[in-house]
């Protein structure tokens, strides 16, 4: 009998719960149909730390609730361009500029005015363990070390599989250790940027590939963008902390990741010089360090009317307190824009001036 009553009560509770959740289901679409309660932000995992910091400060100041999703740049633009209105994303973060195709899709789906805001720069570093050798690479050497297929010589563009086993095979001045790199997988924005800036930049310095680029851009891109698959380049997953750990355990290996991880782990790893330039905050800010990219966010001007505090969030992001010299974003690793450029983007937010491609 005890068992039966227990079961009965369990079932009773289930039904009570069940009815409750049905009510919630019914009321859900009504609640979201009008004005949005929270600012919805999607996009790049590289911008995510900065975006969440601003969200937190803005929430503290105004009580406005903000939701930041880490979907990756591509996923962010896709969600952002689904349409305009309270139940769509208000902002998308991006670690690259919006593509023409994405911009057009936004337009086709009724997003009329998009405000583009550049927030700063992110360096991509090639690092190794603190107590292993100093490396000084050129972009060309980076290309030669990591490309799947390389030309036989600078003048002869017949490709062969990458023959370099050790760094010293590329250039006698480089260390005699085996080439081994842990880097981000193809799904990562950091990987895209590394391939487009470092690998392409390096391939351009090979004379015959530069000539090929003028004739056949696609063929050039394939040669420059394909990383080697013989185990010298290892896709280490999205987690950059894991790469840092691996480097300390494997002193001969190098890792490829964002500057903020070098900044936070300066007691364990050091960055390789690229073109003789050390990856430091100042060198990235001044544009001397060659492998750096711009970070952006995009905002729907149409949504300012339906989402409370959307403009306020964007202004907070570009305020002196956040992105200015010594601001709280600099503290967590953002390399901010120069003041005059920032003022220009801030004015665009004030006036909600859209951009066009």
């Amino acid at each position, binding site marked *: 009998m005890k*068992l*039966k009553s*227990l*079961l009965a009560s369990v079932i009773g509770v*289930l039904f009570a*719960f*069940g009815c409750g*959740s049905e009510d*919630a*289901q019914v*009321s*859900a*679409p009504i*609640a*979201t149909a009008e004005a949005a*309660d*929270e600012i*919805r932000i*999607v996009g790049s*995992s590289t911008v*995510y*730390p900065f*975006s*969440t*910091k601003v*969200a*937190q*400060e803005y*929430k*503290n*100041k*105004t009580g406005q*609730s*903000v*939701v*930041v*999703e*880490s*979907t990756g740049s591509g996923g962010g633009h896709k969600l952002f361009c689904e349409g305009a209105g309270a*139940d769509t994303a208000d902002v998308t973060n991006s670690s690259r500029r919006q593509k023409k195709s994405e911009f057009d899709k936004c337009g086709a789906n009724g997003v009329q005015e998009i405000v583009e805001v550049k927030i700063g720069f992110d360096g991509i570093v090639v690092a190794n363990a*603190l107590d292993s050798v100093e490396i000084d690479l050129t972009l060309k050497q980076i290309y030669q070390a990591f490309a799947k297929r390389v030309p036989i010589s600078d003048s002869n563009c017949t490709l062969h599989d990458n023959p370099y086993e050790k760094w010293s095979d590329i250039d006698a001045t480089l260390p005699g250790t085996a080439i081994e790199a842990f880097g981000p997988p193809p799904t990562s924005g950091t990987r895209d940027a590394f391939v487009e800036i470092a690998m392409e930049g390096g391939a351009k310095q090979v004379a015959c590939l530069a000539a090929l680029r003028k004739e056949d851009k696609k063929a050039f891109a394939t040669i420059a963008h394909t990383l080697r698959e013989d185990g010298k380049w290892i896709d280490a997953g*999205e*987690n*950059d*902390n894991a790469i840092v750990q691996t480097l300390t355990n494997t002193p001969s290996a190098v890792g490829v990741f964002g500057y*903020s*991880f070098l*900044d*936070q*782990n*300066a*007691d364990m790893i050091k960055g390789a010089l690229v073109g003789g330039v050390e990856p430091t905050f100042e060198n990235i800010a001044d544009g001397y360090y060659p492998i750096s990219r711009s970070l952006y966010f995009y905002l729907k001007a149409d949504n300012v009317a339906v989402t409370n505090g959307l403009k306020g969030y964007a202004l907070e992001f570009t305020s002196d*307190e956040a992105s200015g010299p*010594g601001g*709280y974003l600099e*503290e*967590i*690793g953002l390399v901010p824009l120069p003041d005059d450029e920032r003022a220009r983007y801030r004015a665009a937010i004030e006036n909600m001036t859209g951009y066009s491609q």
Partner: protein
Amino acid sequence: MSAFESIHQSDRAVKRMTRRRGQELRFRLFGLGAVIAAMVVLAWLTISLVGTGYTAFYQHHMTLEVFLDEAVLDPTGERNAENLRKANFRKIIQEAIYARFPEVSERRQKSALFKIVSASGATNQVRQMAYANPALVGRTLTLSVPTSDDVDQLLKGYIDRDAPEKRRKISNQQIVWVDALKATGEIKSQFNWTFFTGVDSRDPELAGIAGAVVGSLMALAVAFVVSVPAGVGAAVYLEEFAPQNRFTDFIEININNLAAVPSIVFGLLGLAVFLNFFGMPRSAPLVGGLVLALMTLPTVIIATRAALRSVSPSIIDGALSLGASHTQAVFHHKVPLAAPGILTGSIIGMAQALGETAPLLMIGMVAFVTEIPSGLTEPASALPVQIFLWSDSAERAWAERTSAAIIVLLMVLVTMNALAIFLRTRLERRW
């Protein structure tokens, strides 16, 4: 010697016997080895988690005399919300800590000094107090504010004091200040309540799991309410009432297949059905729960069917022979007797759902949420999602917090499994 003995004790027989015994011994050793290997791995996991995670349960705070200067916060003296919203509370904290070390005057040194306290944490603490009670402006308060994550890590011994200064996140001068404050008791370590009561934060010293835990519990409640009644009902029907034909065979194969489908597929299904078709809100625990319910449904059905099958047929036969209808026999006798198995299956299915991140990605629960969700349609995160996001953050202090969050998640899982075992032994009836 009899013929019998000669067969069983001949050289070949003895050899066969030794071989057989050898096989037996090897099998036992392999079995034991497997168990030991599993135990070692488990112990390793536990030790490394607890070893890195336990320090997250306490945190260093600093006692600070804060003067809420009217000239800074509210020069017009109106005390209205608008003025306070724009007020520079950061400056209040800066002045408070400069006042503690009046000998520091150089700008760079001052900025290094300010980095001892959690800028965001201290500022917000004063800000919220002033918002709640504007009359506090103009008064001096003694507050306990969290120290910055770097100071906390230093005092917890995670930063090597002997490393060259350039390689540290904290300078020699800062170490001197911190040690002095520690010696006078102005910096004290205390239990880290924020970790349990706070929402997610970008600053490790302010981050908590409460929002994620509430989100997880809500999603789990929805999943339980949807998947258990539906799963048990489906299983009872399939097992007891459905005709045995090709169609039901086909359904059974499909259920078994569904149980093995990667969980991200359920996320895609949820995105297509609940978000795009029914227009439910993104990041809501309601949708998360429905997706997790779909994912656990096959587990619940399979476990329930197995439990029903294990009930002795003589019980049903007895009931039927006493005049009970088939439905009565099933619901009065078979289902109650199968209840322990059903509950165990359901709880294990729920425990599985609790640890999932992949399906939540598609429906927008992999997110930073600034509030503890207060309803099923409010945006929320989930505990495993939070662990995933924290583990990918750059600051060193996240490592211990990630481990601590994993410890909490494991504790919940162990509790759920213990509940399953308790219910099984409690409800089990033997003959």
